[in-house]
């Protein structure tokens, strides 16, 4: 099976083979490709970046991201949940706005300093 590693912009083309000894991966330029391939064929994960609404007129939405990866199939549920979240104070980049989102063990963090002009 062929997969493209999405961990870094190199986009290595990975050849993944399931053998008795486990999963065999070739084509990776670095070892992160192996971890990626094994996860991708067992339980694929993605990071998620989006925005949440705020209460500030001059800053209508604030960018957020997961501070780790979440199961790919949970993305729609997390998106739906984040539609209900409103940033009601001037967070700083890195601040957690929702901890352990939907029990994924991953937090949602703000990725900008909201106290800037604009």
């Amino acid at each position, binding site marked *: 099976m062929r997969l493209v590693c999405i961990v870094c*912009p190199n986009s290595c083309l990975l050849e993944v083979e399931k053998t008795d000894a486990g999963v065999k991966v070739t084509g990776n330029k670095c070892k992160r490709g192996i971890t990626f391939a094994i996860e991708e064929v067992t339980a694929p994960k993605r990071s998620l970046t989006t*925005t949440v609404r705020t209460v500030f007129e001059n800053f*209508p939405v604030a*960018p*957020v991201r997961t501070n780790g990866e979440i199961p790919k199939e949970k993305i729609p549920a997390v998106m739906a949940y984040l539609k209900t979240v409103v940033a009601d104070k001037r967070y700083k980049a890195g601040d957690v706005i929702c901890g352990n989102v939907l029990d994924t063990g991953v937090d949602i963090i703000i*990725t900008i*300093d909201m106290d800037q002009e604009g």
Partner: protein
Amino acid sequence: MADYKAVVIGGGPAGLAAALAAADKGAGTLIIERENRLGGILKQCIHDGFGVIRFGEKLSGCEYAQRFIDKVKAHPGIEVRLLTFVIDIKKSDIFTITATSSRGIETITAENLIFANGCRERTARQVNIHGTRPAGVMTAGVAQNYVNLQGVLPGKRCVILGSGDIGLIMARRLTLEGARVLGVYEAKSTPSGLTRNIVQCLHDFDIPLHLSKTVKRVFGHGRLEAVEVCSVNDKMEYIDGTEEIIPCDTLIVSVGLIPENELAESLNIPLDPRTRGPFVDQNMMTLEDGVYSVGNCLHVHDLVDYVSETAETAGRAAAGSKAPRELLDIEQEGFLYLVPQKLDLDSLAPETVFYFRTAMPREAATLDVTVDGEVVFSKKYQNLKPPEMERVEVPLSPKKGQTVKFFLSGREVK
């Protein structure tokens, strides 16, 4: 005496890094930015993937910019003027910059100038689409601004023209926000964006990618109602009988970026037709002494990490004292482009950093650098693709009058 040792035009990642490097070397530095916040295009790049090379982390564009903004704000040697638009530059023994803002018209003088004013997007008008001019046709960057900065969804049923990274990232973003992306159409037979973006932005969301197809016509009065798509051959000519009408309310055009160089051209700074940015030496100094060009106005970068790196090179040089240059042309073959295009023999470091894009996809490629016909450096590449910019450090110390040539060869991939 000039008001500032270095004036940086543009407060995106290039301008921020250039200003920090100049000010760290003691130069009194000013950043002029037309928008109300620093960060440039990264303000709206909420997706991650920035900073892998520089910080070894996958940051969002906003976070990457924030790291530099924090340092700029804390630096005593840097002043920032926001909501200030540079409209004119005149050259005498120093540079006189005219800018407009709510304070009125200001004149600022500088010993050195650093252009860091980015690029602009090619629009639907520039790609020859026929039909009416309805609302709902916009560039990917404009769509990104709507969604990520204003929190507004530009449409519900979207067609994307162009498979560049910005278009791919917007396909995913619009889908996550609840719009339907009907397809991405690319006139060329290969996608222009990174493969990882095809996978994580299109495949993950079952968005079809149609190669060798383009948008021929738009329909709609007031608002866009449909587009006509059509197959094209490898000469980019429409193939009759392949037309298809797709009802949609939004067409997002992502067909490339063009370095913004109107101000540089007004100073008669020569531009390289390959990069569409100025010719520069290894310090990113243009052919006009004291004027530097960095970031996307120099050439369109796909990785911001390299934007910061070159901007720092320019910033350090702009903090130094002016010295006459001995410029040597670099000859090139096999490249879409190669930067820098010149070497200043009087300020050579042991190694010079070059950035290049191959002219066509190649396998088992070799980069050879020769001085007077003798190979002084050689590097092999498994794969080279035009959308992926390469960085290479080359030890070079040619003498005046010698011929330096960069030569890229390898099997062409169809």
